[in-house]
């Protein structure tokens, strides 16, 4: 599975999104992650690869699973990790994002893992700092490490990406996870299908090389993988569908419906899972569900990203 044919070197100081990456760069991250996945299985879950490097986790929007996953990745690489959240920081005292970043840089930090509610915030910031920036989710734009861990899990289970039919069902409109997956999967040659209520599918997304099918049955027919996305109530200011109950009965996936996918199809979900809404509880716990495998793989993917970015920073 190692893509030894195309040897490339990582030269970017930031990971902002899968939109910017080439298929070879994505392949390099996935191969590196495969090697790092072994660290989490040892008795001593530690490697010295980032010894002496400092990472700030700047989470300006609530996050638990992504923050914890990054923190573990940093610790298992022996980096020194410090957490900063918007609540306890000077940003509540009126400090601008630019000043916050400048202050972090003045503390001689190497990498900033950043989550922000505005799309494009990490991209803007990355031009003004020598620190490497890892986008841990920006608004509704991208969540590159989640996209990478989804693709990593898929490749691990299926042995390839090219030619796979991968279906996303749910709130595509507000999903940065879906966008990162779309960029990555289309670059690697998968057939991507998006499914959800018309109001929750971004207009014109077909231009990115994906298919939009509103009928769940047709969408998941013959799928190799189905990823469910939760309804992001916190990002909705207007009523985009009648009710949660109606959504669950029209787009919620259950064991019966999932039989329309290939017999060996895999089920994924970036979490948090809303049992009984987008997914039937029994399906979430079925043998075809790899939701917890995704969580495990997330650490290896984030270790790989931090390792590759820290190498590029030395060229400054």
């Amino acid at each position, binding site marked *: 599975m190692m893509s030894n044919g195309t040897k490339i070197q*990582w030269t970017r100081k930031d990971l902002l999104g899968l939109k910017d990456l080439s298929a070879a760069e994505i392949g390099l991250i996935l191969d590196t992650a495969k*090697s790092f996945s*072994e660290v989490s299985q040892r008795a*001593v879950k*530690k*490697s010295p690869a980032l010894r002496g490097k400092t990472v700030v986790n700047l989470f300006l929007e609530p996050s638990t699973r992504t923050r914890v996953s990054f923190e573990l990745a940093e610790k298992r690489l022996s980096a020194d990790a410090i957490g900063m959240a918007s609540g306890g920081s000077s940003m509540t005292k009126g400090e601008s994002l630019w000043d916050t970043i400048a202050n972090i840089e003045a503390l001689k930090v190497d990498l900033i893992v950043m989550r922000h509610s505005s799309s494009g915030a990490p991209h803007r910031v990355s031009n003004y700092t020598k620190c490497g920036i890892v986008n841990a989710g920006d608004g509704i734009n991208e969540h590159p490490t989640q996209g990478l861990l989804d693709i990593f899990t898929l490749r691990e289970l299926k042995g390839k990406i090219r030619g796979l039919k991968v279906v996303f069902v749910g709130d595509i409109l507000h999903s940065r996870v879906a966008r990162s997956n779309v960029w990555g999967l289309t670059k690697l040659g998968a057939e991507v299908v998006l499914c959800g209520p018309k109001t929750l599918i971004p207009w014109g997304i077909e231009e990115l090389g994906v298919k939009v099918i509103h009928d769940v049955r047709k969408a998941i027919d013959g799928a190799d993988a189905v990823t469910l996305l939760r309804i992001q109530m916190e990002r909705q200011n207007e009523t985009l569908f009648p009710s949660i109950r109606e959504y669950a009965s029209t787009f919620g996936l259950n064991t019966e419906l999932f039989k329309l996918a290939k017999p060996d199809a895999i089920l994924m979900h970036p979490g948090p899972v809303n049992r009984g809404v987008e997914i039937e509880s029994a399906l979430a716990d079925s043998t075809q569900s790899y939701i917890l495998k995704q969580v495990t793989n997330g650490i290896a993917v984030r270790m790989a990203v931090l390792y590759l970015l820290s190498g590029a920073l*030395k*060229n400054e």
Partner: protein
Amino acid sequence: MTSPEKLVLDAAGIDRTLTRMAHEVLEHHKDVKPLALVGIRTRGVFLAERLQKKLLEIAGVESPLGTLDITMYRDDLSEVGPNPEVRETKLPFDLKAKIIILVDDVLYTGRTIRAALDALNDYGRPKMIQLAVLVDRGHRELPIRADFVGKNVPTSVRERVVIRIREVDGKDEAIIAGGSGA
């Protein structure tokens, strides 16, 4: 500038050397049960595989075999340049109470072995770690020595020692290249 290549070991020479090294390992260890072989990526892996076969032929013992990638443990990661590719480590056995024979192609500065010892440490606490190398070319930068040496080859630091292994390079040979022109 093309520099002359000097053949140190040909295919038959490498095979004979590995046979001798296997005998030496067995001579040192009357109890073969705790033995395990760990090859350092890339070429050490295949040399360890061959040593394992020889131990099986000579003593009828099938020692466990592991693969070690030392990239994460290198001491030059904070120096200039992109970080080198990290490849897989596979140690499919418990290191506890094992006698590990670490296998590499060339022993030079000793830095790779230092990294390998640190790495093994993170997987468990073997009873003993010994080092087997096909070629020892000298010029150590750390207090490290090999327990089993295929061939001692005095070199100048300007020369390169190239080990070619069938599985990777299509043929078996050890040569010294460069030197005069560098």
